């Protein structure tokens, strides 16, 4: 099982959507940097993310969420993690795919 890391805004790059097309059930998706804009409870991508939560564990890096003023806007079901949580996820999965 792999950890898929998305670091670009879904509004600017297609990496999140490409990730969704290629992620296996049971794998994990982690939003970092501008990728956290996909993790919000409202907006163009919220429906896709809500559906994705049924098949994948989804995480967002809290320092990046807070930096962008999005602290209270993250969708329920997405787990906020810190940097050491990021390390744990990387270690727990077989490999990391970064959707650059």
């Amino acid at each position, binding site marked *: 099982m792999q950890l898929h890391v998305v*670091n*670009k*805004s879904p*509004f*600017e790059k297609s990496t999140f959507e490409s990730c969704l097309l290629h992620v296996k059930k049971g794998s994990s998706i982690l939003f970092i*940097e*501008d990728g956290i*804009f996909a993790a*919000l*409870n*409202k*907006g*163009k991508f*919220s429906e896709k993310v809500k559906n994705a939560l049924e098949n994948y564990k989804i995480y967002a890096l*809290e*320092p*990046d969420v*807070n*930096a*962008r*003023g*999005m*602290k*209270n*806007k993250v969708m329920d079901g997405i787990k906020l993690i*810190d*940097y050491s949580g990021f390390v744990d996820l990387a270690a727990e999965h077989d490999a990391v795919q970064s959707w650059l």
Partner: protein
Amino acid sequence: MSEEASGVVKKFLYINRKAPYGTVYALESLEVVLIAAAFDQDVSLAFFDDGVYQIAKGMDTKAIGQKNFSPTYKALGDYDINKIYVSKESLDARGLSKDDLMDLKYEDEDDDWAEKDSIHIVNSEELADLMDSQDVILSF
């Protein structure tokens, strides 16, 4: 510069279309805007696409080790930069409204220093007209 040339006031528009912190565009734009403020030109700022995130309220950058430059936008009014246009379509697509943005104000010297909103929410047609009416456009 001749006296004639130094008196020319041009319309400058700064277009901001990228989210803050993930790339350096937002900070670079803000720095150029502050420099330009010294030259007494007719300055407007436009925020659309992911640029609307630049003026979101409640940023806390402590944990990412970058400077939170968002309070600087609140100083723009003191530099006579008070025409800030934000795309309605871009806010809508991101589930944001004016309430999610910082309260950017200025004091109008022509109206007994009344405090007024710098932010104007506009649609894409109005943004197109805004771009069309400029002498200089700087894009970030």
